[in-house]
């Protein structure tokens, strides 16, 4: 195994292996400190960045941060690498790659063609050399379009997941939150519930309620109950209305085992969802969530820094042509991302890395109450991500998820972004909003939708 080094200010810095170099070059994160992987000083971090900038990109095809024999995610990355797509940048160093990404040569078409030629480790490496404005500027150039009943990722659009969670999975309570979000024009990426009780019977009840709502109001969107993928396979076998199959995924085989999944079960779910053929304008039927720190939290990070492991999770996601992928950036906790600065940096990294690898990347702009963060930090991150062309954001009533006990964005925040940055919902959903009397800007009108929906809720005919 090669050793990596750099002489800086007359001092020689050695890095034992590629994992060590990547970890030392990373922006400061409490999780890397917890894992004992962070650079021991700011100077060492800079030495690592100089060394990384001079490293040939093709090093990542030879020196694997998690061994091929030990890990099916590594095997997936190596076995599906497209050398022809990689060719245009194959002679570049990581630093040279950063400069190329920022150049005019790297336009949407060039970036799309390059994506299959990039490995997660290359993408994570270059992100460590990029300032926030670089992460925003390059991500903005990526164009990744996916579709099911709505078309996502088009230029000038921002989609949203409506997350109407309820602490007791009460279907009418969920319907009330859903109506609230729809009236703010939220929900074109997915109406997606995290169930409080994760079992098949409960998930089916929630799915049937959402599907009935969607059909009754002819809402051009997709619904999802974020139950475990093995539950979802059983539910599909029973014939319940599954639009999207959800699963949390991570960047190592062992971390995925911790989530109770492997590539084979994801493949089984992917095949089953595609066979249902429920999409109208497209057939991307998978939805994945990821988050920095999830591998470390289960002790399955193989000594790799959390941002690099996170990016490896995107290799898992892209194998299944997802409609949606989002990082839950501030959710995992302050032992991984300590404060607003770390959460904002990680959100921009995750979005950039996902986009460069060709994923329809979104973000749950969020924090927990034991993190050093507040809604002001979320204001910053959502504005930056929308500027970066983020595919979708998650929103809950009043920013307060009353089931998962953390804070995300509010429906109002989405109005702010649309107004400030001119981003519109998916075209199919936008047309429906106009038809329903909820104007393009999401102004709350006494629309026919509201009157009828409220009446049904009060009468108990919904759900």
């Amino acid at each position, binding site marked *: 195994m090669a050793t990596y080094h750099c002489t800086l200010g007359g001092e020689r810095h050695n890095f034992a292996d590629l994992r060590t170099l990547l970890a030392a070059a990373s922006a400061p994160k409490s999780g890397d400190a917890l894992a004992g992987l962070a650079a021991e000083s700011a100077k060492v971090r800079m030495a690592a960045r100089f060394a990384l900038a001079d490293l040939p990109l093709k090093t990542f095809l030879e020196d694997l941060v998690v061994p091929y024999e030990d890990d099916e995610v590594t095997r997936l990355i190596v076995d599906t690498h497209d050398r022809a797509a990689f060719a245009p940048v194959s002679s570049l160093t990581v630093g040279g790659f950063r400069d190329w990404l920022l150049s005019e040569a790297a336009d949407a078409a060039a970036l799309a063609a390059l994506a299959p030629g990039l490995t997660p480790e290359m993408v994570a490496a270059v992100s460590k050399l990029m300032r926030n404005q670089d992460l925003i500027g390059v991500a903005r150039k990526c164009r990744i379009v996916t579709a099911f009943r709505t078309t996502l990722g088009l230029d000038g659009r921002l989609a949203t997941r409506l997350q109407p*969670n309820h602490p007791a999975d009460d279907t009418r309570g969920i319907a009330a939150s859903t109506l609230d979000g729809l009236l703010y024009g939220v929900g074109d990426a997915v109406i997606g519930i995290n169930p409080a009780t994760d079992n098949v019977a409960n998930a089916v009840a929630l799915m049937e309620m959402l599907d009935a709502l969607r059909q009754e109001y002819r809402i051009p969107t997709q619904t999802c109950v974020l139950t475990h993928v093995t539950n979802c396979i059983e539910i599909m076998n029973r014939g319940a209305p599954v639009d999207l199959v959800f699963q949390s995924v991570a960047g190592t085989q062992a971390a995925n085992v911790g989530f109770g999944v492997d590539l084979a079960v994801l493949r089984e779910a992917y095949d089953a969802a595609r066979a249902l053929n429920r999409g109208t304008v497209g057939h991307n039927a998978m939805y994945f969530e990821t988050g920095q720190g999830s591998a470390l939290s289960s002790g399955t990070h193989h000594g790799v820094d959390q941002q690099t492991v996170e990016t490896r999770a995107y290799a898992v996601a892209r194998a299944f042509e997802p409609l949606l992928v989002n990082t839950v950036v501030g959710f995992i906790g302050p032992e991984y991302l300590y404060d607003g600065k770390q959460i904002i940096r990680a959100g921009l990294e995750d979005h950039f890395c996902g986009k460069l690898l060709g994923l329809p990347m979104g973000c749950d702009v969020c924090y927990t109450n034991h993190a050093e963060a507040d809604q002001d930090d979320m204001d910053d991150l959502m504005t930056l991500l929308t500027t970066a062309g983020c595919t979708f954001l998650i929103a809950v009533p009043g920013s307060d998820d009353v089931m998962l006990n953390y804070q995300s964005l509010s429906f109002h925040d989405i109005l702010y972004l649309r107004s400030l940055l001119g981003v519109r919902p998916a075209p199919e959903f936008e047309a429906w909003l106009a038809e329903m009397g909820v104007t393009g800007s999401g102004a709350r009108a006494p629309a026919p939708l509201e009157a009828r929906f409220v009446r049904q809720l009060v009468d108990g005919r919904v759900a």
Partner: protein
Amino acid sequence: MSRRDDERALGERALGEHALGERALGKGALPEKTPTGGARPALADPWAVLRTLTPARIGLGRTGNAIPMRAVLEFQYAHALARDAVHDALDTAALCRGLAPLPTIQVASSAPDRATYLRRPDLGRTLAPESHAALADLPPAEIAIVVADGLSATGVQAHAAALVHACAAELAGFSLAPVVVATQGRVALGDAIASRLGAALCVMIVGERPGLTVSDSLGIYLTFGPRPGRQDSERNCISNIHPNGGLTAGQAARKLGWLAREALRRQISGVALKDDMPAALAAEPGTPLLSPP
């Protein structure tokens, strides 16, 4: 169900763990349905009705694209309470007075302060070296009850003493070690403490991660054969213990009593010990039994 509510991660989010529990919004909170053909209620403010269906912040209204002032302040106030719950220091002396006449011992984890505690969960799971002596040379006991601040000192300060008294009454047939009060403690700190006490069963009472709705919730983690290195899957958890629609201390203690007896009888805890206590046994005393247990 085995879990650790103070240390939720992505997988638990996906699995839909919840902290408020079924009782937070009982069916009784639903408005009465309009009888078929009967007079419908006037819907001057339909959102007043919808708000009874969920604790979510729905129907806030808007000013321009923003949330109106009052709702912004209420949100920030809730966040302030949650932040204080995380950062306030536990007044251990006051807690020990509340625990009297039960004997108590005070210890600390290896995390020296709150900022370190939040960054280094590993330190919150080990005992500070200077606390070892406090746990030495005690007579053997079957059950060790440990109370730790966890992520809500507010919740522990307010409700832990009553919960411990209820649990001690429920466990009256067993020999109990002195109640250990621990600061900067995570769930697994109980393993380090109870194994030093030679207890067969650890009952760890800890402040849960605060939410905006409830910032003073407690959780109980039951571990048979406690020793450092126990996995979360080897614990049984009773979460969501608080006065704002959560489990009452009495309900939680009865559930604990049942689990403790089963754990000691079957010599196991965690996923292998299913929480299948008959529902009627969990009810408040005096509640009529609709069906025999």
